């Protein structure tokens, strides 16, 4: 018997606005607890909500990028429930007239391109954060995140495999991050995903009983949770030992299993109703076109530009446009150093491996592009050799040193004085007569050995080209 796994996703993405959705507080991540808080977003009475226009514009942009219909008269609703991280006792969200409907995006997996349709995108406010303090056995509330604008992107149950889910999420992240709609960082919670999953016999038109999985903190966890949960469903269908019930389940990353959180019968009645304190937002054609005009280059556009205009190999372009952060670093560096291939090499070969050693993903790399460009210039005009440059790059990455000053202070300038280098080369050859004999007997590989020794003696500063020429000259004499 073969089975089909049916998956729909609810993806929450924090919008990159300066301020919160209904008040003027900063929406920045990483502030001290309750630093970005005012009477309105901490639930005090008497502060009417005022809609952040920028959030609506980012919602429109998300709709345009996902080929959605944009709602012309958008309204907000109140969703009522009690929880300490929700200071007003209601969340302002969109149920009746969400900003976008009926969109789609194309995803690419090993088995080709497939179109995934979206039910809707709606704007809503985020809740705060509860932290349990074991020292004083108290729950502490941080309202910094309260009322930070989110969009929730709800897909139809079009996805079939964890590979497709990861491709879908990657595509969304690429679209949204390149457009500046969100930075989409799962580890910071600016991108979150709930998975709705059910299993049916292949060919069956009827959907199976669905479960919803929450607490998914990475693409990897999402894929693992889907694998686990679909197997659980299939086993239940095959053996009949367990009955799948409609419920919400939590994924335990450590155990790699899902656990029941609450059943359908425990589902809260959220008593949604139209928010009477917010006027409907009218979205005109002009407004939509104005937003469209400000949309920056998509990852796809940038890939085309890098390969066609800058003649980068597709491999390089794909890596650079696979991350909004890398492509920003690339562009910013290009402003100061006009050698696309060289920049691509430095990013892909050096920067990524340094970041990896520092346990940082490509989206977390922070580097001063001006210093990065200076370093490449120093290398290009032969002030320093490549090996020294690599070492300085680590210093730039870790400590933010200024490459020019660093080279000066540490006297790392490349040594091109032929007479001086010839002395070193002679010394090395004299000290390693055995290897010289090997060379004479036809072993070319010892050249590398000599170069290493010479570099050592010159503290890595020798011009490799001159060193090679000198070696050949002296050895072949």
């Amino acid at each position: 018997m073969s089975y089909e796994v049916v998956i729909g996703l609810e993806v929450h993405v924090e919008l990159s606005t300066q301020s919160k959705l209904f008040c003027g507080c900063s929406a920045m991540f990483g502030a001290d607890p309750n630093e970005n808080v005012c009477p309105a977003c901490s639930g005090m009475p008497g502060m009417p909500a005022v809609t952040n226009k920028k959030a609506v514009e980012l919602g429109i942009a998300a709709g345009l990028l996902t080929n959605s219909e944009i709602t012309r008269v958008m309204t907000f609703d109140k969703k009522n429930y009690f929880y300490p991280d929700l200071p007003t006792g209601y969340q302002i969200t969109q149920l009746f007239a969400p900003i976008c409907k009926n969109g789609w995006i194309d995803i690419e997996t090993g088995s080709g391109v497939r179109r995934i349709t979206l039910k809707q995108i709606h704007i809503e406010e985020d809740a705060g954060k509860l932290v349990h303090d074991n020292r004083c056995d108290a729950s502490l509330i941080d309202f910094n995140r309260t009322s930070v604008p989110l969009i929730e992107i709800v897909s139809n149950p079009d996805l079939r495999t964890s590979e497709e889910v990861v491709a879908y999420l990657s595509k969304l992240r690429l679209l949204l991050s390149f457009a500046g709609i969100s930075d989409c960082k799962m580890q910071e919670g600016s991108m979150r995903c709930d998975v709705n999953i059910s299993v049916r016999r292949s060919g069956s038109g009827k959907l199976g009983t669905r479960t919803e999985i929450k607490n998914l903190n990475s693409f990897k966890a999402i894929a693992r949770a889907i694998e686990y949960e679909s197997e659980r469903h299939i086993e239940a269908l095959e053996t009949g030992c367990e009955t799948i019930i409609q419920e919400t389940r939590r994924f335990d990353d450590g155990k790699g299993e899902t656990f029941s959180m609450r059943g359908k019968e425990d589902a809260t009645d959220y008593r949604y109703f139209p928010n009477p304190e917010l006027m409907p937002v009218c979205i005109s054609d002009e407004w939509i076109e104005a937003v469209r005009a400000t949309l920056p280059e998509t990852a796809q556009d940038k890939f085309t530009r890098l390969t066609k205009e800058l003649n980068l190999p597709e491999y390089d372009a794909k890596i650079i446009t696979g991350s909004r952060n890398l492509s920003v670093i690339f562009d910013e560096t290009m402003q100061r150093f006009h050698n696309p291939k060289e920049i691509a090499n430095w990013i892909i070969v050096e920067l990524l491996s340094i970041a990896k050693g520092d346990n940082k993903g490509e989206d977390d790399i922070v580097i001063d592009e001006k210093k990065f460009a200076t370093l490449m210039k120093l290398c290009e005009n032969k002030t320093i050799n490549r090996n020294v440059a690599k070492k300085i790059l680590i210093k730039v990455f870790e400590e933010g040193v200024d490459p020019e000053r660093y080279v000066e202070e540490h006297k790392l300038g490349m040594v091109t004085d032929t007479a001086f280098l010839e002395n070193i080369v002679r010394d090395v050859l004299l000290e390693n007569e055995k290897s010289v004999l090997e060379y004479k007997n036809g072993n070319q590989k010892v050249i590398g050995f000599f170069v290493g020794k010479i570099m050592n003696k010159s503290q890595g500063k020798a011009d490799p080209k001159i060193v090679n020429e000198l070696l050949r000259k002296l050895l072949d004499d």
Partner: protein
Amino acid sequence: MSYYISGCMTGKNDQTLVAIEDSIMQKGRPVTAGSKILSGFTSPLDATVISRLEAGGYAVSGKTKMREFGLLPLCEEACEASGAVRAVADGAVSFALCNDFSGVTRREAAENGICYIHPTYGCVSRYGLIPSACSMDQIGIVCRDIVEGFGLLSVIAGNDEKDGAMYPDKSYVYEPLDKKIKAFVPENVLTAAIPEDKAAVLALSSHFDGVSTELAYFDVLNKAQYILSCAEISANLSRYDGVKFGFRADRYNNLDGLYVNTRTQGFGLDAKLALIMGSMVLSKEYYTPCYEKALKLRRVIKDSLDFKSYDVILLPLRITGGAYESSAVHALAALAGLPCVSFSYNGGGVQILAAPKNENALLTVVKAVTR
């Protein structure tokens, strides 16, 4: 002074004093909206009306007592009029500001021989007003003289970017219209009125050309208002949970206990009734037959008003029946967001309603009949 919860005289001797209801927030001062649930809460800011009063040379005299969240007194009988009405009636102040979404203050003002101006919904900022029913909340003016009251209204009215549901007009000029006013005197409402008010409305209407048909949906106005206001109140009162500010129960064993005990001890009966009603009409089961129906009704009620055929609507302030039944006569202004003035006339209570932002029609009527 029994009408005040707290005095907070801020003015100099030559300034006109304005009392404010305890639902209007004044920086650094306690504000309770008449509820124990807000005991201990200090306002972090000044309501926009406070800053405008002060900028306009008026001084705040103190905060007046009010029914809990200004609710209709259905469970707890009110033994005396609100502090705002009594303060003005006794001559302690010339004006008082309050939120009269339920219409009770409108009635009390006339009963005490003074007047009330309920401005068009969305003309006076509600920044710093403790919300009850957002779609009806509106700060109005208790005054002895309506013309003077409009003088104060021009000081506090006008768009405020901190309130997201306002008309864009920066300011308003209130002056009588140079036209013959036509009045709509609904027969069916008059029939239900108490005799004094019926006589008063008829005496008032004799000054104007009249249209006298029936007021559509009169029998369900109070129901629609009650359903919608309770729903909104139930959401607006959710923030009072004992977690962040205001009253918190002494004893509780867990989070639910904190909520239940705090809210049980903190709210009065009318608030509890509104919470239960509001939660019920918003529940899955009752949303469509109750809440949604009331919303639709509100729309058709608004649409049924024909301000092309008349300028103002004359209504009594009291009809026969209990507090709930009588609220029908006050529901129209709240449901349709209409401006309204109330006062006593010929021994009865009357209210005059006009189209949104047509306060000048009200002023015209008042000037004509009090000349």
